[in-house]
């Protein structure tokens, strides 16, 4: 096992994500907190990266800032050749729709949409025709074993099923990167293992996966692990 900081080895494909000098500070009336401090990170296409660290270390903030969900105070984040924080909100949103998928701990499905409607959402946003979007959403759900739950709404699904719908939604648009923030945090051990197996399968198929977790067992399944403490990346371990 080798340890490098901030950059992939030269044998890997060209980086799909390059972050440089990223700083993020949360300011409140009472105090300001440096959530990210001069973070540099390159992620190669097809990598499976686990972001680890204790609670409050800045893992989720890192994910939000790198994916463009949140603004940064300093630095740059280039995803697939686009410096996303220099883009307008509209362009950044469109870029996100076209190239990223998200999996959240709390599932965050739209409760008034059925499973298939939730999954087809990013496809429709990316401009796919309604018919084609529905077909691909169904295929994604069937692939994840939810072919019998297409018309069910989230409150009618179990936690594991909801998370699988979330995974289906994240991959339906065939994004270049999938961001997963504690994807198994709300699941029991057995269901968590199933979901992780699913994610590993997707990675094996070539998906770039960036996963935030505080669970070492989950992190161990990633080929590369970085550890965040006090807003800094303190270690970057790659398992060859």
């Amino acid at each position, binding site marked *: 096992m080798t340890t490098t900081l901030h950059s992939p080895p030269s044998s890997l494909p060209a980086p799909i994500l390059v972050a440089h000098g990223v700083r993020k500070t949360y300011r409140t009336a009472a105090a300001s907190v440096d959530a990210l401090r001069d973070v540099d990170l390159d992620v190669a296409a097809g990598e499976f990266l686990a972001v680890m660290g204790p609670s409050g270390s800045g893992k*989720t*903030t890192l994910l*939000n*800032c790198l*994916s463009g*969900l*949140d*603004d940064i105070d300093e630095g740059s984040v280039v995803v697939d050749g686009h410096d996303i924080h220099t883009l307008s*909100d*509209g362009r950044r*949103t*469109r870029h*996100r*729709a*076209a190239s990223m998928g*998200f999996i*959240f*701990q*709390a599932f*965050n*499905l*739209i*409760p*008034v*949409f059925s499973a298939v*409607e939730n999954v087809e*959402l*990013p496809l*429709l*946003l*990316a401009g796919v*025709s*309604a*018919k084609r*979007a529905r077909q691909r959403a169904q295929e994604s759900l069937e692939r994840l074993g939810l072919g019998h739950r297409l018309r069910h709404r989230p*409150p009618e699904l179990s936690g594991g099923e909801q998370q699988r719908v979330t995974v289906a*939604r994240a991959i339906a648009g065939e994004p270049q990167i999938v961001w997963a*923030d504690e994807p198994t945090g709300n699941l029991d051990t057995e269901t968590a293992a199933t979901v992780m197996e699913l994610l590993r399968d997707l990675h094996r198929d070539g998906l770039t996966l960036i996963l935030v977790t505080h669970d070492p067992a989950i992190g161990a399944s990633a080929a590369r692990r970085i550890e965040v403490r006090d807003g800094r990346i303190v270690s970057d371990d790659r398992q060859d």
Partner: protein
Amino acid sequence: MLVVAVASLPFVFVVARRPVLRRLALRSIARRPRESSLVVLGSLLGTAIITGSFVVGDTLAASLRQDAVTKLGPIDELVRTSSAEEQDALTARLADLDRRSEAIDGVLPLTTATAAVAVPGPDGQPRRAEPAATVVEVDFGGARSFGGDPSITGIDGDTPRSGRAAVGEDLATELGVAPGDPLTVYAYGAQRELVVDRILAQRGVAGVSERPGSNSLNVFVAPGTLQQLVVEGSGDTVPPSASVAISNRGGVFDAATGTEAVGEEITAALGQVPAGLASVKQDLLDQAEAVGAEFTELFTSIGFFSVLAGVLLLVNIFVMLAQERKPEMGMLRAVGLRRSGLVGSFALEGWCYALVAAGLGAMAGIGLGRVIAGVATDIFSGDEAFDLTFAVDAPSVQNGFAIGFTISVVTVTLTSLWIARINVIRAIRDLPEPPQRPRARSLVGGAVVVTAGALLCATGIPGEEPYATLTGPVLVVSGLGPLLARVANRRLLVSGASIASLAWAVSAFGLLPGAFDGAEIPVFVVQGILLTASAVALVSQNQEAIGALLRRLGGGRSMAVRLGLAYPLARRFRTGMILAMYSLVVFTLVFITVLSNLFSSQIERFTADVAGGFDLQISSNSANPVPAQEVGTTSGVAAVATLADAGAEFATPMTNGEFESWFVTGIDEVFVDEGPTALNDLGRFPDADSAYRAVLADPRLVIVSDFFLQGGGGPPEAALVPGQSITLRDPVSGRVRQLTVAAISESSFANDAAYVSLASLRDLYGPRAVANRLLVATEDGVDPAVLAERLDATYLANGADAESFRTIVAANLSSQTQFFRLMQGYLALGLVVGIAGLGVVMVRAVRERRRQVGVLRALGYEAGAVRRAFMLESAFVAAEGIAIGSALAVATAFQIVANDTFGDDLAFALPWGQLAVLVVATFVVSILATAVPAQQASHVRPAVALRLAD
């Protein structure tokens, strides 16, 4: 206020003894100040509307009561007789009674006559004139001491000397005269030049008047002046009116309480002297009370829709609050808070809102009443001007506060009881409630509702009771839903019951006209509620189908359409409540707009109905009537009918044999030849001509209007039918005549009198039956309005008031339209409730969907699309509500026209322009109300929303 105190006791207990619940409630209020403000706004409008209705009643009643001061003062009764000789005998008898009676403190002989009064210009021709002033002869010394309090008599100085006149304030203002100015009085075909001696305040005896409205156009002259005019003049005229005024012991208002006892004493004292007794002050005060109550009821009934919208808003907000706080509520229950504690906390929060809203609403109601009184002043101005004096009685404000408060507290308490029924685990995990299976309790409930409905049908329909007839069948079909829930599809059941209820509520008036004949306004309120409730239930049950259709129309790919429709379709209760609010308010607004247009757009048809074969009418002074023969020879005049209008009293089966004041009109053959008022019930006659000719031939026959002896607005109440017997009494001589109703004429703006033959009237009234109204048919090509002006100028000395029928109808329709406008404005307040409700829902929607908006934004949903989705959501709900309300209103108005409720030939027409403005304005304002929350939603930053949520 006792009700408020009693209703508040449990809440005061919670405040004092349950600190946790108190803290929960108060901090929940402080937590969302903007939403708390909107809740208070929605609730206070209900109180404001109720209080405003009371204040309108107070104002009307006080204004009429004020006439007791300005037009009567110490005068409580008037005893009328027909000649000066009889007046002397009458005065002697009543003076004797005054000496003996403890209840009477004065008698005062008065002689009056209607006359034209003019101010001559430099050329001797009238410069300004009043065609129908009252000339009064009274002894000023006696008048000043009459009743024991000179200050309330308005009489100042000595009795005018010959050639001098004391002019009442109103007439002086009308003519623009001051002391020293010349004045000419025209009566009985003669004239008298006078000099204004002084101006008298419009008060008491100086303001004495029995004419409608608040004005007293009096000129006081020396005793004997009228008799001289009668001697100098000539022709067929009404002699001066001789009467004796009676003052009861007591002040202006409390003296009227002795009217009944005094009346008995007077009747006994009169013996065989032919005289009529009129309890003028008591009648006026009774009328004030009745009119005040009538207007309070009218505005309360109309405003009830808005009050109901406010109740729906409260329920909706509380249910939303409960949904938002569901996990908290679950936790509270988990750590030991009892269900009653949850109810107490929510209800206490609602009690605080209710208390503040009722207080502010009562104050706003006073302002609202003032605005209505201000607008109504214009409506009540006109020939019979009615001075509105703004008045607020403390009990009215207290009642408005108490009713508004009670409605709010009952609403929030019942809602709290409902929403506190939670499953602890599902609440903590924020899981939806599972679909409910039909339970025994709902079966029992359904059976009770069906039974109650059946009972109402069984008693109401045969008994022609409107409320039971209207609601009975609706209850039966509504109760069938829970009963059949186990065996039939819920959507089909509710849809079927809703369609049946809708059909019944729309058509009941036509199917069972007997039950709704003369229906009161609250019946229409119940109908409106049934209609909107049924329609909202129908639409709510079929929202998925409506949504699918709209999605198809909007294109499957439009995410804004998908998302905008998804929430209203999923949150059926919430959407249903907003729909109900909008539907109720829009229903009333559109209905009143359509109704207003039905009347105002048909001026030509109304004119034709009212005018018959004539084009204009000339009313004139009974003391100096316009000569019909002379008018007949005027160029442009084709025919002249002579009519005699006189005050009368009628006793009918409708009045239970009691005499009520109305008018009687004697008609001649020309009136029948040229085309009299249309008849809508011919009785036993084959046509109108036969009916009128029978009246001309038979002095025992009468034709009455369908508004005969009716007051107020709306459709006529239970009216007479041909063949019924009524009694006509001359209020002066007391002579009576039994009459049989030959036919029923259409009500008209110009005359709702009872038609008898001129000969019959003269037989009963003697020389007081004077041809004081002429109907004129013009020659072809003559403009009736121009001819009316010419006749006015020619017969000024006769007090001529000539108007074309078109002008009369137009003026009446204009007043009616203004009144409808006033009601529209009042109803529009309900829109504020509806729009505030939509605003609250959208504000809360943004808050509760913050995380979902964050997810959408993370997935690539642009800010503008988020805004559009929220706007579309409110647009969808507002559009549905507007569509339901408008469709129901148009259907109801059409049904009313089709059933001839307002006459058998009212043509149905829609005011497309006005409706378009109303609908578009409501829609646009609704969208604007949600612009701010929609904008806020679009500004939700995805990472922040997700972080806060996770």
